[in-house]
């Protein structure tokens, strides 16, 4: 039980340690900035949670994020209203999710390979469409999405919470969520039970893509540009958040709360390193080591359970 709570305890310990170590940590400004910085990874990681539970993986989310962000900002540049732009960005992400799911299920190619391929294609298309140049002509009010406050907390926190609740409801209270667990836990048994495996797998990737597109708009709003090179390496952070939070790359395991904790652990590690003046080079190494440590402890727990 203690081990099951390990990610949560790690988060608390980090929080307490940083509160003691740095006077600047427990300030409104700093905590808000942690929330804003982790929001993008959080939203992506929530979609990744669904995908990983269903036994898949999506390496293309970093590229999809850039694609979505670019489509949304380009729409605004052409005079579409802000809300429409956000929808277009999210929707563009969803299309890539559908492509990923359809390729993985209908061509029966390993999702690792499929999304490695679409990662390149989506990034390439983004660069072609934008000519490699960022989109700058964006209405000023769009910055509210990433930088604004609502009821005293960052607006993105509300978005993260809404997405988290939505994914949690999908996982625990819908047929799609149950099928995701079944497919991830044993795809053969799911198929033998008459579950439309291809359709539901594709739906899961589509939701992942939708959230990634939305994350792309948040990122664009924070930067106030549609950046075709945005999101590089984010896929690994999103996967790491899920895995730190107890998700298993073998499928069938993972939870919304775990993923949120995982994303915040990484956010705090990076924020704390900044506050304590640890070099960004070392930060990366620390985060990498923490990923291995947490997953190793989780593996020990699993082994103990199964024997």
């Amino acid at each position, binding site marked *: 039980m203690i081990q099951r709570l390990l990610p949560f305890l790690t988060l608390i310990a980090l929080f307490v340690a940083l509160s003691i170590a740095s006077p600047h940590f427990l300030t409104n400004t700093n905590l808000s900035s942690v929330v804003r910085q982790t929001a993008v990874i959080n939203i992506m990681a929530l979609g990744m949670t669904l995908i990983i539970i269903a036994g898949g993986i999506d390496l293309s989310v970093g590229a999809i994020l850039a694609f979505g962000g670019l489509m949304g900002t380009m729409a605004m540049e052409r005079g579409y209203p802000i809300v429409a732009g956000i929808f277009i960005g999210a929707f563009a992400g969803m299309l890539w999710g559908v492509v990923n799911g359809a390729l993985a299920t209908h061509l029966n190619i390993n999702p690792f390979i499929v999304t490695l391929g679409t990662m390149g294609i989506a990034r390439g298309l983004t660069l072609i469409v934008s000519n490699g140049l960022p989109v700058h002509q964006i209405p000023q009010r769009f910055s509210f999405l990433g930088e604004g406050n609502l009821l005293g907390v960052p607006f993105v926190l509300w978005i993260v919470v809404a997405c988290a609740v939505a994914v949690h409801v999908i996982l625990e209270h819908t*047929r799609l969520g*149950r099928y995701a*667990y*079944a497919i991830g836990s*044993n795809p053969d*048994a*799911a198929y033998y*039970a*008459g579950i439309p495996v291809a359709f539901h797998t594709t739906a899961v990737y589509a939701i992942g893509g939708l959230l990634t597109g939305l994350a792309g708009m948040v990122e664009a709003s924070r930067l106030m540009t549609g950046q075709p090179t945005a999101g590089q390496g984010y896929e690994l952070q999103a996967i790491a958040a899920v895995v730190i939070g107890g998700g298993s790359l073998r499928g069938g*395991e993972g939870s919304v709360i775990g993923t949120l904790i995982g994303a915040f652990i990484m956010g705090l590690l990076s924020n704390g390193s900044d506050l304590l003046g640890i070099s960004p080079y070392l930060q990366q190494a620390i985060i990498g080591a923490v990923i291995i440590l947490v997953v190793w402890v989780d593996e020990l727990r699993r082994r103990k359970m199964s024997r």
Partner: protein
Amino acid sequence: MLLALHGIQKRFGGVVALRRGDLEVQAGEVHLLLGENGAGKSTLMKVVAGMIGRDGGEMLWQGRPADFRSPKEAAANGIAMVHQESLLAPHLTVAENIFLGREERLPLGWVRRRRMAEQAARLIAEHGFPLQADWRVERLSPAGKQLVEICRAIQHGSSLLIFDEPTSSLSESETQAVFRIVGALRDRKMGVIYITHRLQELRSVGDRVTILRDGETVHTGPLAGLGTDRIIQHMVGREVTAIYRREPLEPGAELMRVRGLSSRPLVKDISFTLRAGEIVGLAGLVGAGRTELCDALFGIHPPDGGTVEVEGRAIRVKSPREAVAAGIALIPEDRQKNGLAKALPVGYNMTMASLDSLSRFGFLRHGAERQTASEFIARLRIRVDSPHQLAGRLSGGNQQKVVISKWLARGARVFLFDEPARGIDVGAKVEVFEVMDELARSGAAILMVSSELAELLQVADRILVMRHGRITAELPGRTTQEEIMRHAALDDGNVKGEVIQE
């Protein structure tokens, strides 16, 4: 005395797997190790083979206290284990597998392939195994793989060989081949420990028996003069009537009609009907196409010819979806692989096929789901703490009941049971048969595939026999094993090589 174990104890976390494991094996004897699933047989053997440590007790190997800390150390001392599931490297050849981990090497790690191939070939020829040193292991049948494991053990100069349920996946003729080999090993003064579930095959291999129950050795002695009923009684700890006999009932309406069904390459021109209340057995040798027939009916490998009608309506199955929609259920041969999501709760597994009716607008109706799960846990007497328990932690019999519940919850009417009692305890077997009987009585039609002829004779109302993809006979339920074998194996005397390499 080759091996002596006294009072071996082993616990995993809070679970006691072995309380008092006693076993003595002499050179030149085949010692049967019996017990229900979870009795501690495998744990005891893992202790002997150095795969796990023991918490208490004494182990004497060739008269000296021994404590093997790894399989490698046990192997170096002459103990080898042939596993139920093949632990071979499928992409390597027979010879490479025989020498795996013990390659003959020149300095700098150069592997002497040709020399090893020659040695392997000599070993194979010496024993007359139907193998070739350069065959790739992935192409071998389960029996062929087992032979390779046996070669491995012999090559390493073992003096004690442990067989963990060697014949559970083998056909009749392959089983006989394994028995011959076991006999030959005994003649060479090796000690053999043989774990099995199949009571029938005991007589043809064993010299002495040790029976475990709940982690304790409850009986040990010569096999001769020990009746099957006594063995079962020792295993189960109470009187059990192993001889289950179903009372057939008057069959009702026709539920399934199959005409000229074929599914290349193993199912050819199959016709039969199933009626409500009937249990129809399907017998045949391994490779006769029984599982393939079930797979074709269920849409795993859709048929390429013929017609299937369910309750008078013609159906076309392209995937399990259509079969399930038509009311067909498959309880697959390999339930761990195809029937269960082991890491998910029992309740999830039970409702997996019926979420369409247990949800509204895509949202689960948790109340209805819970009710379904508890209903079937009670009805099939499934032993679980709660529906939240993970399916993988149940015993084989209870897992099988969970798989059956999945289809009961769905309201299926035609059940295809593929080896329903394989790998299940004696006591649980009878319970599974009772569930099948109950199903038939409530108006379902059942097709039951089994390699255990005795089982078919106990349960089936009539028996279809398949050979080489065709139905060769339809026999009444009260027929004999000899009669079934006659139709199943008519011209199978010369296919041993074919059986070994698929």
